[in-house]
């Protein structure tokens, strides 16, 4: 048996063990399930830490720093000095006395992150979604008969869904004569329609997630059977 085969057998055994431990939750919360979850959190965070070092810090910080030291270049030195300064400031978060200084690095991160998020929301979601809603009607140009009616009806329903769903999340209210706060009547009606669209959308999402979960469960049960079958085939 080669080293790779041994690794595969060990990996298969671990996979079998952890699948059984996790699925033991079906009979209720128990220590075996907790062991699996805690080991999983530990292994996953340790793996993430190693990935962060080798795929982020090593190529973006360690290598440029070594290069700057070797070349003795001032520009390169300044380029790596700032992240080292930020690193030191973030590490101060660990200390209760100096944690306030970490705010400087956090402010930089939040500012840069806010700008990236803002542009991402604008160009990645808002503009494409608006364009896609308009394009349904654009597709009706040059069409006729039943096809035109179908396209206009579908586009109208999608547009109603978009507007009414947005109306559901509109919480601006006006005071009434009796002192109660109510939304405007048209917004209230649209919001009611929006509830139905949201219910339908969440139903579709639920069905999708449920189908995925079912597939994952079947895959895990199949892996358990395959591992046992391969063990008997091996020995």
């Amino acid at each position: 048996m080669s080293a790779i085969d041994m690794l595969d057998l060990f990996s298969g055994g671990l996979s079998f063990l952890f699948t059984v431990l996790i699925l033991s939750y079906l009979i209720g919360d128990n220590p075996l399930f907790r062991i699996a979850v805690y080991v999983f959190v530990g292994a996953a965070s340790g793996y993430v830490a190693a990935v962060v070092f080798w795929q982020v810090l090593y190529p973006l910080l360690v290598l440029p720093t070594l290069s700057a030291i070797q070349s003795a270049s001032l520009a390169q030195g300044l380029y790596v000095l700032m992240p080292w300064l930020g690193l030191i400031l973030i590490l101060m978060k660990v200390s209760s006395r100096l944690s306030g200084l970490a705010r400087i690095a956090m402010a930089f991160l939040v500012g840069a992150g806010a700008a990236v998020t803002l542009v991402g929301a604008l160009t990645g979601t808002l503009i494409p979604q608006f364009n896609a809603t308009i394009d349904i009607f654009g597709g009706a140009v040059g069409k006729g008969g039943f096809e035109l009616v179908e396209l206009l009806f579908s586009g109208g329903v999608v547009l109603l869904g978009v507007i009414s769903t947005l109306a559901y999340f509109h919480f601006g209210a006006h005071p009434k004569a009796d002192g109660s706060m109510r939304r405007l009547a048209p917004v209230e009606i649209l919001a009611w329609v929006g509830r139905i669209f949201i219910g339908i959308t969440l139903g579709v999402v639920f069905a999708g997630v449920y189908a995925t979960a079912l597939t994952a469960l079947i895959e895990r049960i199949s892996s358990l059977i395959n591992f046992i079958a391969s063990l008997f085939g091996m020995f």
Partner: protein
Amino acid sequence: MRVFTAVIAIAFGLLVLLGYFLPPTLFPTVVDLQTVLLNWAVILTGVAALVGIFNLIIVHTDKVRRAEKGSVYSALLVLSMLFTFAAGMLLRPDHVAMQRVVLSGIILPVEAALMGLLVVSLLYAAIRLLRRRADAMGIFFILTAVVIFLGSATLPFGDIPVISTWIRPWVTQVLALGGARGILIGVALGTLMTGLRVLFAMDRPYGGK
């Protein structure tokens, strides 16, 4: 310090933002500066992740030291974390042993099995929803889920006519599309507003009122 951190957030945020909107052919320096700033942000995010993981170790070793309830689990967490981190640093995460043992042996099976457990918990949640909240949204939610299941099911006699061929595609491609698009636009508008509030220093999640 309060004003200083706000100035840093606004200044660097605007510089990154400018890099997206100014044409690179006319303002190459701004785009280069944006790349440098984003690289620094990636490095600091990585360091912040490591600090978070270090904090996890501190919390759980403290639990073990105090012999609190469940400290055995905390000890297992710390041991598995240290072992995986040490192996990852020595072998690198893309090494075949790391991939087979840590990824294929622990992380992926646990994630898939946890996803599998959702079959039971989602079914239970759907039943609870029907019992506790039988309003328009709840009824349409359950009805849609049932229609999608019936329309997607592979039965011995084939697809269910009308539901598979007409109702399910129309529900997913028209009705649900409208709702999903509305939710996505709502989320994006919320994200946009949050970003602008941070850039105008109306919200200061980095500290300071």
